[in-house]
């Protein structure tokens, strides 16, 4: 996660969970833990009813934090604006069957033939242009 965020650089306006929200999370977390602890204390003590209440409140606080984290993750994992696709050109020589793959150049199109063959006298024909297979993205 962290590497992704730095990679995206200025393109992470979605990281609006700022330090304010973080402080809120921390405060709620401390209170929730305190309430849980109090709840367990009261169970052992003379006041089990109040213990129930404490535990409910504490769990609710923790659930709220969990929800907040879940949301932030969903927002920040949005992909950065689309990066450039790498395109390759496939050339074939009809006279000597040489097949060559190179990076796409502007002006290339399928069935253009004005590039001389590197092996024989013939001219090569572009038979294909497609995007390079992208490495599988990690989820």
């Amino acid at each position, binding site marked *: 996660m962290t590497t992704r965020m730095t990679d995206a650089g200025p*393109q992470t*306006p*979605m990281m*609006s969970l700022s330090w304010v929200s973080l402080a809120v999370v921390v405060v709620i977390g401390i*209170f929730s833990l305190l*309430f849980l*602890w*109090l709840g367990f*204390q*009261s169970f052992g*003590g003379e006041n089990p009813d*109040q213990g129930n*209440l*404490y535990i409910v*409140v504490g769990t*609710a606080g923790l659930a709220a934090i969990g929800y907040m984290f879940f*949301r932030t993750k969903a*927002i920040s994992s*949005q*992909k950065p*604006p*689309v990066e*450039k*696709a790498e*395109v390759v050109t496939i050339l074939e020589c009809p006279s000597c069957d040489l097949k060559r793959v190179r990076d*796409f150049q*502007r*002006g*290339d*199109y*399928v*069935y*253009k033939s004005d590039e001389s063959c590197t092996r024989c006298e013939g001219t090569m024909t572009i038979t*294909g*242009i*497609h*995007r*390079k*297979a992208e490495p599988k993205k990690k989820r």
Partner: protein
Amino acid sequence: MYLQVGQLLQNQSDIGMILQTLFSLSFIIYLFYAQRIQAMSMLRAVEGTLRKVKEIRDKGRSVSIEAVKEASEGDYDPTPDVERFLEHFFISPTSLDPAGIVGKMGQLLNVRENTFEAEVRAMAPKASDSEVNNLENLLEASLALNIYYKVIRHFYLLGKKTMNIYVIMQIHMILPMIVREIEAYSRALQAFRDGTPIGDSVGPLVAARLMHGHEWSDVAKEMVAAEVPYNGRTLIVTKAKGPGGSVGKPGDAIENILNSRKGRKKVDAVIMIDAAGKLEGEPAGGIAEGVGAAIGGIGVEKYKIEEAVKEHDIPMYAIAIKQDITHVVAPMVEELYTACDTAVETVKRMIDEKTKEGDTILVAGIGNTVGVGQ
């Protein structure tokens, strides 16, 4: 130490009471303001998308301006002209009285096309025909991005102004789909600037594979066709004229070809190849066979094809090459590229199965032929 803290709080149950009240209060607040909180969080998501879309829109505009400038003469600054272009709109004819609406639509689309072409030619006099076509497509992609941006901004500002959850919800609900479309268009910028084949070019690429090496001629505006012998049959293969970005007028081409064969042996079957939207879970590059006119768009060309085929009473078959919305206008991915060779085999098998020797078959590769010659 820790016992002391516990005792402190336990003994003074007042503090406990206060905290309980606080929590109850927050619960009650949430009871009344839940919708507002939800609206605010949705609005925040829309805002994030809006920022991203603005970035892509601005990129589209700068790419377009740069590309036009490259093809223009002297120190002409195309910025105002491109900006004017990006605000261009199209008013569909009324459907209150739908009779004849296809003709009206077709006529308006022709006017739109001619206007665009004339504007691009005026902006970029140095550009060749294919470059003009590519520039036209590039500007149209930028125009689409501009409209997406403006619509999202409209709903965002309206939602912010009214804080009405239903206004905000309308845009929030379709946001994931819109983002995919916008990302697709942002890839289209690269494809049309450089002139690389896109996902939609699978139809013309299959046609080009069949007709390459045979003499071709123009059959309609930006449409070419070639007669190709195959297995004792004659194929008439047609596609948009490449390598500039164009979808041509396949309706006119098919109509003209069918009509021009009066007196000669009539066409026995029509096979159309087109890109088709895949459902989530289906592989990109999957090939499906069916019946009917495989062509997208507003429906003008589809109408013409169906009319012509009905008039001549010819069976019409379709081959769909499945792809995702994110593939359609982006540079062609390898799966789709290899699918074209499979599709060529499928066409041949279909011809062998459905026609007999001596028959004439019209094969039409439908789609944008950017980066595909013939």
